[in-house]
């Protein structure tokens, strides 16, 4: 830290030549650093220079708004003589770029250049100007790829922080949407933006977010996942305690619920905190579709989550320990299938589950062109042939397939991944202790869930601790019509916990049918 401070105080020299030399050498003579020294007729005897890093600036803006005005400089006499005021005048009446800043040290100059700004220096002045000419190639705003909806906005975040913030600004058009940018990473100097809606957010949680962000000490942040692992409450848990999304509407909704959003430059994935378990079961579409459809789908989602976590374990438990639970005909058909199978249920299930996980990962990593191959290998070779060869039973293939499909219902990938991992624990316990094993491990999981917190908010709220009295259940397992959801969902002290004044349907003109 001290060393950094010392470096940061290397002042700019009054000599333009020296500054240019210093910049070149500090950048290691990098060939993409452009320093252009030139003279302007209007300021004889004083050379000007602009410096920037090629590729991360917008060349068009530099030419039009910086170079052109500087070249055709016509300044009043007194400015040219009193050198110190030259830069001030440049800023005041020449360079036509929105955001400009005075800097006095070499390291600031270097940092701004690395950030994609253009530095303007003049001979004889120990200061410089920066002009915001940020630009360069970036992906244009496109359709959200990982969290798709049928009804609702389709666009997703891109890699540029500036664009991403603007996407949210376009949804919440209010001055109470506040944006604070922090730099994190000693080498990458990544911009990390904290967004919140002033007046809704809990100040305590906001402070905690700042505190945790400030405590991050690492050389580089390449993705919001880095930030997530640094600021989450509990490291040793399988359950994610921060939501992430690539959808601006999801972030906007979270902000309106009193959450804090964290957007990291260079990634389309934004983080939201605090988060509760139940928010992972909410797709943005739940709120755009009619409430009855949304409720149905949400219930399906909870069921699917339990299925994807427990089904193989239940199958193992039933076939190994509690055969009497099945209706007799089903039991006979299952027993007939399993007749020639050489493995116990647990081994069979582990084999198939591992196979599926491998297939799934392969499907994700392999080049797109050979994608169809995976379905052939997966469906025919591993599924059908394995059954025909008598290595696994058909029932097990059905169970594993349905488990796998159920897992894809989850709108949040990281929560879905949790159930994939926990599934194996349940399977092992079921293989050893049947239903009792499932019960004990389920209880263990519940206790763990009940002890988790996300930025101080209990993870299982509003179910435990309960918020029934405040009407927080209206958007948990079911989704009530919008007009009935009065309270914001989080269990925390918010300045403004109500979204609506009361639970009243807006009056509609009722037609009696008579003319």
């Amino acid at each position, binding site marked *: 830290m001290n060393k950094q401070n010392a470096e940061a105080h290397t002042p700019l020299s009054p000599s333009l030549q020296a500054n240019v030399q210093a910049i070149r050498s500090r950048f290691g003579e990098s060939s993409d650093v452009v320093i252009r020294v030139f003279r302007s007729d209007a300021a004889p005897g004083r050379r000007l220079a602009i410096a920037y890093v090629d590729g991360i600036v917008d060349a068009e803006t530099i030419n039009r708004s910086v170079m052109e005005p500087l070249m055709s400089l016509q300044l009043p006499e007194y400015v040219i003589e009193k050198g110190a005021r030259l830069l001030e005048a440049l800023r005041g009446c020449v360079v036509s770029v929105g955001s400009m800043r005075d800097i006095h040290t070499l390291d600031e100059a270097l940092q701004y250049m690395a950030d994609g700004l253009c530095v303007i220096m003049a001979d004889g002045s120990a200061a410089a100007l920066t002009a915001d000419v940020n630009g360069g190639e970036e992906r244009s705003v496109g359709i959200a790829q990982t969290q798709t909806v049928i009804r609702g906005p389709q666009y997703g975040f891109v890699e540029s922080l500036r664009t991403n913030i603007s996407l949210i600004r376009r949804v919440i058009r209010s001055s109470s949407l506040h944006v604070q940018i922090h730099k994190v990473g000693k080498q990458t100097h990544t911009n990390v933006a904290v967004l919140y809606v002033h007046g809704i957010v809990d100040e305590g949680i906001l402070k905690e977010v700042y505190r945790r962000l400030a405590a991050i000490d690492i050389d580089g942040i390449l993705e919001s996942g880095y930030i997530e692992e640094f600021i989450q409450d509990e490291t040793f848990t399988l359950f994610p305690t921060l939501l992430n999304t690539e959808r601006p509407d999801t972030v906007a909704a979270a902000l309106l619920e009193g959450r804090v959003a964290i957007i990291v430059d260079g990634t389309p994935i934004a983080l939201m905190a605090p988060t509760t378990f139940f928010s992972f079961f909410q797709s943005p579409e739940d709120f755009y579709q009619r409430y009855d459809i949304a409720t149905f789908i949400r219930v399906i989602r909870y069921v699917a989550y339990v299925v994807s976590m427990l089904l193989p374990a239940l199958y193992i438990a039933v076939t190994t320990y509690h055969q009497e639970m099945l209706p007799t005909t089903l039991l006979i058909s299952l027993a007939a299938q399993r007749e020639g199978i050489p493995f116990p249920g647990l081994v069979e299930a582990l084999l198939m589950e591992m196979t599926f996980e491998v297939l799934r990962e392969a499907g994700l990593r392999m080049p797109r062109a050979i994608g169809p191959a995976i379905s052939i290998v997966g469906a025919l070779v591993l599924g059908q042939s394995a059954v025909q060869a008598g290595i696994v039973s058909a029932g097990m293939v059905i169970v594993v397939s349905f488990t796998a499909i159920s897992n894809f219902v989850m709108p949040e990938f990281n929560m879905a991944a949790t159930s994939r991992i926990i599934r194996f624990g349940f399977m092992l316990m079921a293989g050893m202790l049947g*239903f009792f094993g499932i019960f004990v491990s389920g209880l263990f999981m519940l*206790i763990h*869930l*009940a002890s988790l917190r996300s930025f101080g908010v209990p993870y*299982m709220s509003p179910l*435990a*601790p*309960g918020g029934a*009295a405040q009407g927080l259940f209206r958007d948990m397992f079911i989704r009530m019509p919008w007009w009935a959801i009065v309270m914001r969902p989080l269990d925390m002290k918010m300045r403004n916990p109500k979204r609506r004044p009361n639970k009243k349907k807006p009056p509609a003109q009722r037609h009696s049918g008579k003319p």
Partner: protein
Amino acid sequence: MQRIGKNQLSILIILFLIGSTPLFELGIEAKQDAWIAMTLAAAAGLLLTAMYLRIQRRAPEAGLAELYMMHFGKWLGGAVGLIHMLWFAYESMRNVRDVGELTMIALLPLTPKWIVMLLILAVAAYTVSKGLEVFVRVIQLLMPVAVLSYMVIVLLLLVARLPDISQLKPVLENGLAPVLKAAFPDLLSFPFGQMVIMLVFWKHVAEKNTIGRASYWSQAGVSLFLILMNMLTLCVLGPEVSSLSALPLLEAVQLIRLANFLERLDVIVTLLLFIGLYVKMTALYMASALTLSAVTGIAYRNWVMPIGAAIYASSFLEPNNTYHIWIGLDITLKIVPLFQIVLPVLMLAVGLRKKYKAARPAA
């Protein structure tokens, strides 16, 4: 200090009192009048709760150990607190053993009991180490499961037309005497008198003025529920079979046969019993640790493991299930009134003579 809300208190009381109660057909000594015995005991149970609340109100921020020390002096009170703490641990042990026996009867006949009991106790110890707040949250999560399962059971029993109300007749065949004998002190001691444990937990409730109302209503509600379940089992099985069966509710549910599909619902019952036993075991274990910590002044978390180890070790002392049930229903129930009635009454009496300042700080 950890704080819980009034709804959480209610749910704690409800699931705690349900606990392992449906395991047994209580008051079956009164034959078809078991439910009357239950009703009488439940009413008396509310009176006991009124007494506990009265004591607790003298020092709302004091737990059981602090109350003993306030009333009986530091040394005597501490000693009584220690004995009561041992009693909590003992009762917790009984539930651990119940889980072991139940698993053997209903689920895993060949699995050694030590591993079953070790696992359930590990879960309880994990909960206790996380503290009361997490415990009540877990109960809140279990509550919907319990409610749904009971609803399914009752509904299916009714749909299958198994209950036969005439099983309850004739009412009071042999007069009130056998009913009273069944109700007192046995039924009062288990489950209703176990409310004495709330003296440990009440001090953690944030809104002190709501304790009374929440406790009465939830206890009254759960008493009603237990009486109804008792009646239902009686109606399905009849007094003779009920008195012979090891797990009457399980037996009753096994009779359900619907649509050639819903046949084996034992699992739901077993799950329910496990939930109840877990809640009871953990509450008692936690009460034990809290009381010991209050008496000795040594931090709560240091007691979690030693008490757990003691509970685990002592759960092997009884040689078999028959012995376990005999001790539980005959010996234990004779000692319990000491903790549920004698000691609180003594406290109440001592307290009447002492003048208490409105809010005396804890010990």
